[in-house]
């Protein structure tokens, strides 16, 4: 298979991924705290901001579009656990405690269990994935993620024949995440994919961006990235993964079922009660641009929805 050949041509994980560095990331972050603050000042931007993953292999799914700046990617976020304003998650980033971090795998699979983050990530070859991100609020970014395919994890968990969906859950920690003491959303945040969606090679778990460990406001230490769906599907700070028979409930779907469907594929033809989805503003640009079907990933994911009425299954 072509994919196999591509993979064989790539170096072994031990050669390209400084896991030792990754394991020690907290020390770097602590040491880099001052640098991090300095990095936000004009002129110093682009300086080393914490631990780096080193040179990672590129992916054939990478877009060559201009990247959204690190500053914008990390200061303009929807992460309600850290506040509902766009700048809040960056301001409140330290409220998210990411150590220790475990991921519980459960449901219809042969390998349930609780995995420490390091063990969850270790078997996988990290790579750069430069994806477009399209928010349901009609803005978009281009982000160089660092991650690995969800499919590899799914295979490792050995889902049984009953498994048709994968449900994900964000950390619930109202003690530190004060927003979770309010009923803004039905906490904890939940999202889900159909199993074949999760198996699509575009779906990744990200542990970093811009070659660096994922900042808290971007969903540290582990988040989903499904670039053909609206941003809220790409659930952040994942603590649980469950294989289910039935379509799992999602946080936004419960909050407003008319507005946020289970699929929530980027679709310029299906408008949202608040936002026309025909166009989007790329962060950093002035004029809006046309939104593309499946956010421009129709070739990769279109077949998943063959024969489905996407106006009904929005």
């Amino acid at each position: 298979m072509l994919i196999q050949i591509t993979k064989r041509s790539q170096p072994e994980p031990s050669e390209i991924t400084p896991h030792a560095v990754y394991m020690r990331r907290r020390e770097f972050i602590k040491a880099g705290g001052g640098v991090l603050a300095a990095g936000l000042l004009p002129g110093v931007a682009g300086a080393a901001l914490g631990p780096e993953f080193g040179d990672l292999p590129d992916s054939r799914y990478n877009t060559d579009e201009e990247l959204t700046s690190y500053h914008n990617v990390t200061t303009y976020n929807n992460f309600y656990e850290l506040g509902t304003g766009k700048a809040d998650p960056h301001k409140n980033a330290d409220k998210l405690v990411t150590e220790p971090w475990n991921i519980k795998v459960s449901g219809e699979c042969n390998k349930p269990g609780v995995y420490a983050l390091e063990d969850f990530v270790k078997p996988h070859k990290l790579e750069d994935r430069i994806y477009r991100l399209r928010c349901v609020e009609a803005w978009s970014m281009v982000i160089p993620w660092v991650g690995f395919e969800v499919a590899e994890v799914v295979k490792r968990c050995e889902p049984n024949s009953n498994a048709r969906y994968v449900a994900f859950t964000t950390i619930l920690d109202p003690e530190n995440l004060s927003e979770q003491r309010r009923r803004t959303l039905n906490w904890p945040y939940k999202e889900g994919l159909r199993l074949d969606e999760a198996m699509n090679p575009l779906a990744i778990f990200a542990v970093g961006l811009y070659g660096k460990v994922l900042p808290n406001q971007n969903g540290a230490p582990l988040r989903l990235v499904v670039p053909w769906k609206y941003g809220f599907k790409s659930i952040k700070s994942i603590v649980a993964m469950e294989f289910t028979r039935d379509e799992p409930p999602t946080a936004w779907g419960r909050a407003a079922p008319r507005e946020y469907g289970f699929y929530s594929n980027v679709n310029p033809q299906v408008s949202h009660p608040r936002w026309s989805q025909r166009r989007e503003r790329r962060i950093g640009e002035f004029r809006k641009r046309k939104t593309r079907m499946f956010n421009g990933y129709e070739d990769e994911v279109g077949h998943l929805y063959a024969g489905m009425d996407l106006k009904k299954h929005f």
Partner: protein
Amino acid sequence: MSNGIATGVSPESGRVILIARVFVHAACLLPLAWLVWTGLYRDLGANPIEYITRFLGDWTLRLLLITLTFTPAARLLRVRIVRYRRAVGLYCFFYAVCHFVTYIWLDQFFDWPSIVEDIAKRPFILAGFTAFVLLIPLAATSNGAAVRWLQHRWNKLHRLVYVIAIVGLLHYWWLVRADFLKAWIYLVILAILLGYRLVRFAAARGGVSR
């Protein structure tokens, strides 16, 4: 007369009124000045157009609520402040115009088909547009000549402000995705302000003077 300097006031109170007027204008221009300063010398964030639109919309709503506060505050606190209301009302209109222009120009960039579709399909935009259109006759008839010309009809016309406030708040309410805290604060304030008038209206109908 509720507007303008009443005749027969002493020079001191004339000076007080002048200072108060300057204060009202400065206070109303402060948010805009802050926005311009932040835009020029600091940072409006990753999505400045969204920031500007929201900021101007927020202040339109706040100034509208402040405008509605003058009458109850004057009666309850027995202060003569209604003479400053017109300026605040006009600033509310001014921020509404800025908000509207930001949407048409910066956000949509004069994409008229998109704008028409937005107004037709997006309830929150229809509400905002309606509130804005209804503000126009009020702003147009805010001068002394219009007051004299319309006479008692002026009061009737300007009761539109209650409708505008409700529709304007609806505009905001329908925009909110999940965090309704600020929307609730606005709603409670508006409910108090309109409730006060309802109570007075009911009392007046019942023949009670106060």
